[in-house]
């Protein structure tokens, strides 16, 4: 019974008609991969934000009585720096698409500096706040949310520095090949948007 339905042979057309036999250049889907991965990242933050809002909703007083006031000046400046860095990094993308590697390096270096300032500012804030991780529920969510976001900024910074490092090689990035640049940029925008939501939730709506 098996032999009647079995095709004893396999696909084996002559090589000249078989275009694409042998090793096959895989088309590049990495940007789509980055975007799909960021959906998962967004869901982690969404989950944590929802948890925060629920804690806030079910507590009789929010923030719990005795929570010291949050200073707004430093985080405000930090927010402006991070948001502007999104515009700065976009220039790098424009530059690389014109084959301008020097421009790419310049804009990435500025973005990296702005990211670093943001992180230092956040650490400074941590050391000068009047509440600690375990003070109360607001304090815990504050540190975990901003800390988790800070780790993402740090990771974005590493990506940017990695691109800078690679861009030293001539022709590594060009108008046709610039996955690293785009991926770092998309990631950076993502981290930015998350911060805007965080800032509104933790500092403004508190």
């Amino acid at each position, binding site marked *: 019974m098996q032999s009647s339905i079995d095709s004893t042979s*396999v696909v084996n057309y002559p090589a000249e008609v078989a275009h694409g036999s042998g090793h096959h250049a895989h088309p590049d889907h990495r940007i789509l991969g980055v975007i799909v991965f960021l959906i*998962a990242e967004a869901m982690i933050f969404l989950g944590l934000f929802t*948890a925060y809002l629920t804690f806030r909703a079910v507590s009789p007083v929010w923030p719990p009585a005795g929570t010291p006031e949050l200073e707004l000046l430093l985080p405000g400046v930090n927010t402006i720096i991070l948001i502007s860095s999104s515009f700065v990094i976009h220039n790098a993308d424009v530059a690389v698409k014109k084959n301008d590697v020097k421009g790419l390096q310049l804009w990435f270096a500025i973005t990296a500096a702005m990211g670093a300032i943001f992180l230092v500012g956040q650490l400074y804030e941590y050391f000068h706040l009047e509440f600690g991780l375990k003070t109360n529920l607001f304090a815990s969510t504050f540190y975990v949310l901003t800390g988790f976001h800070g780790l993402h900024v740090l990771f974005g910074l590493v990506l940017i520095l990695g691109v800078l490092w690679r861009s030293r090689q001539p022709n590594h990035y060009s108008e046709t090949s610039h996955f690293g640049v785009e991926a770092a940029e998309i990631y950076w925008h993502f981290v930015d948007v998350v911060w805007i939501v965080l800032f509104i939730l933790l500092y403004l709506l508190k």
Partner: protein
Amino acid sequence: MTQTVPEQAIVTPAHGGSTESKREWRKYISFSTDHKVIGIQYLVTSFIFYLIGGFLATLVRTELATPASDLVSPDLYNGLFTVHATVMIFLWIVPAATGAFGNYLIPLLIGARDMAFPKLNAVAFWMIPPGGILLMSSFFFGAPGSGWTSYPPLSLVDNQVGEAIWILSVLILGTSSILGGVNFIVTILKMRAPGMGLNQMPLFCWAMLAASCLILVSTPVLAGALILLSFDLIVGTSFFNPTGGGDPIVYQHMFWFYSHPAVYIMILPVFGLISEILPVHSRKPIFGYKAIAYSSFAISFLGLIVWAHHMFTSGTPPWLRMFFMINTMIIAVPTGIKVFSWLATIWGGKLRLNSAMLFAMGFISMFVIGGISGVMVASVPFDIHVHDTYFIVAHLHYVLFGGSVFGLYAGIYHWFPKMSGRMINEKLGKAHFILTLIGFNICFLPMHKLGLEGMNRRIADYDPKFAVLNVVSTIGAYILAVSTFPFIFNVLYSIFKGEKAPSNPWGGLTFEWQTTSPPPHENFAVDPVLLIAPYEYGTEEAKEIIKAGPFLATAAAEG
């Protein structure tokens, strides 16, 4: 179809020489980026964990053979059922259903040479063994004992080291699953062969697309919950600890936002396998292709808005319980659409009752029982009665064992010739099926009655009035344990001594049957082009194509 197929020639298999085939096995323990190797790595690894999880279950059932807590300490008992569930979910069904079959089949089914991101794929697989070994190591430190749900505040006070290990392990396995999901989505969307639109995709790909979307949306929320839980556990914050002003209910919501969809992550790919297997062995076109394809997405979407049906007794307000009860019951509609489509597919077909088909039909009947008890527990008053009883244990095992595991076995039997290049022994396969079906029902059917009469789950001792049915159930568990022996023997024997498999032993129309068994590196000698929809069995066109051999041809080959 009057296309002339060029003269056929036998291709030398990818692994020809004997010295080469001696080294062949090494690629399965290497950081291979070949999706077929990775798929088999997933399958073997997860099956080993299945045996471990099964061993733990056997210990649990042995403890429950008598009403007294006499075999192991109650503390160890808690660890046994907690790790049993965690292993079965995160190390067996999820990696086997998505990782093993997803990786092995998707590129073959859509005519691609590999996954979109082969390296990422290998990374995702190699997170599984460390995650699993880590989890098993928790037995040396006092295993986590608060159930696989790890509800605080219990999980914060009971065996804290074991609990921390559990959290880390689940985070690793969850990350692996997310990376896999990214790969499946991009591969299915972007790498299909020319001529294959979304509506010509084999149904397994639809199911994997729907399951991957669920993985992507829900797993991160579990990660968020576990991050907060680990802060409570290790640092002493009180997100979920009421004594510090926290709210344990928030954990339950976040946990079930993942863990209800997790049921669909474990069953949707298996639905996909069944949709592939039934038409091939019924020699009939699938009934209701679009209905089956789109209902996967309906299930995914609804699956995201039913989670609180696990929390009817957690002080959930009545209006919210209504909302979740109605949503849950609605899921029976897309699921029913699938079941009826499968029945219509085999109805009047020329059934080939081999092991794959038997397990597929076993899947339908057992899963329907689990589905019906699912509708029962969806209704609030009934659920309040059976909450945390053996009725729930019975229900979930009919879904996850009678459903997922039966389906996975069907998949293994169906694709074994493709994966190994050898035919599997049908007599042993049938013995395996009969033992599994009998053992499964003896083990889990009595639990419905035990639950209705009020026997609590997750407790080592119980009222002596439940003794008789528990003995029956334990005997069933032993039969199940024995049932794996013919299977393991069959696989090991057939890999080395089985009859050589032809490229298309079942007369399948999907792409994987149009290449050698096992397929060569990069799968196809030429880029395949879709000429006929995947399920046109029994039509004149299909008969001609199957007789002629491969239906893959490039446009150039026609001219």
